[in-house]
């Protein structure tokens, strides 16, 4: 018998082992076991992939204008693949969109998203509710059973200086002993409308941009990687609403790496280089009133349902 070649043997045994690991992992998950979390090595391996470079390349590719005859077939394939509802789009004619990036930023007809007047809090985006509830201690659940640290997610708070060191991070955020901290996670799938709106009447006082990884935020990955939302690039808007502290955070992902704010043209996301663990603050409290919606000394006032920003390809 010829001696077995090492490479095919390695590939077969390696893929067999990975297949077994995968089966064991998801089998454990299916029968209600605790979620299988990625090991630090697996996370480091995933983060070592050049997802940011991939994302920017993907964005450049989708910024290239398509010839008119190619637009309908390309966008129709995207519509069919991701279940896009073009009847709701402000412009239904597919030839109108010069490239896929522009198609991805499509606007909707105003009448198709009425803002609920009975609720003090409305959805900021189209998508799927991944998780919601009360924040216990200072850990937030990204999906059932998988948590991340509130402090890592929001970063240090200015009030940290003025209260006793024994206060928990959660206590720092609360302005009244009669209130609690709540959270909700909305996942936007590739076919969803990707602009986000103000979920209530509030004033944005601070924008904190955390450059970071651009791993997928697909629900399966959110179940697998703890602290995913603290590792990915994100923009945290924080301020006050009628009941105290309020924040809206847009978290980027591999194919949707860029985040834009309509009232803050200075924001630049998914830049080629950044320092790990760093963040960049911009206070709107001292902003002059020339900015749209700025309330002068009080920050940027947003009305419930008002368009705030958008995710872009790349």
């Amino acid at each position, binding site marked *: 018998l010829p001696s077995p070649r090492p490479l095919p043997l390695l590939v077969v045994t390696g893929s067999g082992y990975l297949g077994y690991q995968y089966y064991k992992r998801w089998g454990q998950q299916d029968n209600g076991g605790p979620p299988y979390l990625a090991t630090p090595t697996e996370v480091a391996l995933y983060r070592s992939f050049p997802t940011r470079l991939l994302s920017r390349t993907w964005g450049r590719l989708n910024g290239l204008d398509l010839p008119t005859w190619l637009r309908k077939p390309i966008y129709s394939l995207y519509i069919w693949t991701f279940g896009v509802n073009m009847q709701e789009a402000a412009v239904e004619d597919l030839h109108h969109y010069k490239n896929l990036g522009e198609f991805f930023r499509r606007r909707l007809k105003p009448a198709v998203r009425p803002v609920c007047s009975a609720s003090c809090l409305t959805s900021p985006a189209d*998508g799927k509710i991944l998780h919601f509830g009360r924040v216990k201690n200072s850990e937030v659940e990204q999906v059932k059973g998988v948590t991340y640290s509130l402090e890592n997610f929001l970063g240090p708070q200015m009030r940290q200086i003025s209260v006793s060191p024994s206060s928990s991070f959660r206590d720092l955020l609360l302005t009244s002993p009669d209130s609690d901290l709540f959270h909700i996670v909305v996942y936007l799938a590739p076919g969803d409308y990707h602009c*986000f709106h103000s979920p209530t009447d509030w004033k944005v006082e601070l924008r904190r941009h955390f450059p970071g990884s651009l791993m997928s935020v697909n629900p399966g990955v959110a179940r697998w990687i703890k602290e995913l939302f603290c590792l990915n690039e994100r923009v945290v808007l924080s301020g006050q609403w009628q009941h*105290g502290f309020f*924040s809206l*955070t847009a978290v980027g*992902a591999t194919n949707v790496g860029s985040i834009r704010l309509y009232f803050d043209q200075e924001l630049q996301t998914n830049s080629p280089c950044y320092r790990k663990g760093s963040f960049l603050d911009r206070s709107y409290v001292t902003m002059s009133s020339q900015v749209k919606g700025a309330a002068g000394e009080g920050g940027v006032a947003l009305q419930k349902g008002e368009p705030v920003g958008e995710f872009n390809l790349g």
Partner: protein
Amino acid sequence: STIVLLFEAPKDFSFNLHPGQRIRVGEGLGSL
């Protein structure tokens, strides 16, 4: 991509949602 809302509200605030549900811009999320 993902949007995360973190906010302070009175203890009797309640969500009218269930996990995995589809939601659209402007739809009510909860009430006091």
